[in-house]
C-alpha cells in the first residue's frame, strides 16, 4: 500500500530502515528538526544539521525511491536558553527557500516553561512572516495535557489559520482539545509511549477521520519506522475499507502538506 510518513527523524536511522519503508510502500518522508538526543553546543551545530536536513538526507532517501521533505526550527528541549535559541533561529531564514522545506517544526513545548513559550511564540511569528505551515510537538507523558492546553491558548491568540497548523503526538486526553479548535492532529505510534496501533484506531473511531494523520516519529530511541503501515493493517483487522485506510495514511497527509508551496509529489 502507498503511504506518506509525515514525521520521521531519518538522520537517526539506517539504510535498512529506508529499505523497509520503501518495501512497505512509503512514497514521501517528512522530517521535522528535533533534539538529537544531546544538546548541541553552538549555533554552527544547527547550521550543519539544517544542511543535513535539506541537502544530504533528501539524497539518501532518493536512493530508495522516496521523496524527502523537512521542517526547520530549534526544538523546545534546546530552547530553554532564550539567547542561544534566538541565535539558532537567526540562521533558519536562509534555509527556508531550499526546495524540500515545508515549514516551521517541530516547535512547541517540552517542560512547559516560560522560555519555551517565548521561543514558541517567536517561531509562530517566523512562520507567519513567511506564510508557512507549522508542525507542533506536544510534551511527553505527564506534561502533555498542560502543554497542549498552553499551546492551544497561544495559538488561539496568534491569528494564524488553524488549518495550517498540525499539533502532533495527541492521545485520548488531548485529541479533542486540538480537533475542536480546528487544528490538525497527529498521532504518534510508539512501542512504549504515545499511541499503540489499536489505540490510534480507537482515536479515529472516537474523534473521526478528518484532519488527522498518523506517524512513526522514528528516531534514535525505541521506535518503529514502519509503524504506519503496521497500523494500516490494524485498521484492516478492524474492517476499515482500503479507501478509508488510504485516507488516513495518504490522502490526509497529502491534503495538509499540500498547503506548503514546496510540497509536491
Amino acid at each position, binding site marked *: 500500500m502507498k503511504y506518506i510518513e509525515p514525521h520521521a527523524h531519518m538522520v537517526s536511522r539506517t539504510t535498512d530502515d529506508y529499505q523497509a519503508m520503501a518495501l512497505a510502500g512509503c512514497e514521501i518522508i517528512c522530517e521535522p528538526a528535533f533534539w538529537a538526543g544531546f544538546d548541541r553546543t553552538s549555533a554552527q551545530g544547527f547550521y550543519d544539521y539544517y544542511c543535513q536536513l535539506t541537502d544530504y538526507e533528501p539524497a539518501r532517501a532518493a536512493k530508495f525511491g522516496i521523496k524527502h521533505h523537512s521542517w526547520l526550527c530549534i526544538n523546545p*528541549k534546546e530552547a*530553554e536558553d532564550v539567547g542561544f535559541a534566538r541565535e539558532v533561529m537567526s540562521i533558519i531564514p536562509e534555509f527556508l527557500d531550499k526546495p524540500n522545506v515545508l515549514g516551521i517544526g517541530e516547535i512547541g513545548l*517540552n*517542560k*512547559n*516553561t*516560560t*522560555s*519555551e*513559550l517565548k521561543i514558541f511564540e517567536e517561531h509562530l511569528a517566523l512562520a507567519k512572516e513567511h506564510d508557512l505551515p507549522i508542525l507542533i510537538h506536544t*510534551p*511527553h*507523558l*505527564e*506534561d*502533555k*495535557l*498542560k502543554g497542549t*492546553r*498552553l499551546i492551544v491558548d497561544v495559538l488561539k491568540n496568534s491569528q494564524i489559520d488553524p488549518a495550517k497548523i498540525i499539533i502532533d503526538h495527541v*492521545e*485520548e*486526553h488531548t485529541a479533542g482539545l486540538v480537533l475542536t479548535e480546528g487544528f490538525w492532529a497527529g498521532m504518534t505510534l510508539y512501542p512504549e509511549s504515545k499511541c499503540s496501533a*489499536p*489505540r490510534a484506531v*480507537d482515536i479515529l473511531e*472516537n474523534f473521526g477521520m478528518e484532519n488527522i494523520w498518523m506517524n512513526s516519529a522514528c528516531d534514535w530511541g525505541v521506535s518503529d519506522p514502519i509503524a504506519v503501515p503496521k497500523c494500516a493493517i490494524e485498521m484492516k*483487522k*478492524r*474492517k476499515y475499507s482500503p479507501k478509508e485506510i488510504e485516507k488516513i495514511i495518504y490522502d490526509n497527509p497529502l491534503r495538509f502538506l499540500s498547503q506548503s508551496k514546496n510540497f509536491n509529489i
Partner: protein
Amino acid sequence: MPSKEDILDLYFIDARHRLIDVAAFLDRVDRHTGEPDYRVEAFYSAIEALVAHSEKSEKSRAQAVLEAFSDHSETPLAKATIQSASGAAKP
C-alpha cells in the same frame, strides 16, 4: 464495523496478558526494598480512575487514566530543571 465479539477475539488475550503484567509489576515493586515513590501512588490513582468509570462517565477510561498521570497545574514553569518526563506528575 467489527462486533463486540470481533473486538474480544482480536484483543482479549493481549489485554489479559497486559493486565497480568500490571499485577506482576505491582507485586515486584512491593517485593523490593526502598522508599515510597510518587510514581507508584500515581499508578494506584490511575487504577482507581479506571475502576471508577461508569456508563455515565463523560470521559473514556483511557482518557481518565491519562489524566490521572497528568500535571494539572496551569501556569508555565519558571525554569526547566530536567529535560525528561517520568510518566507521572510529582505531587
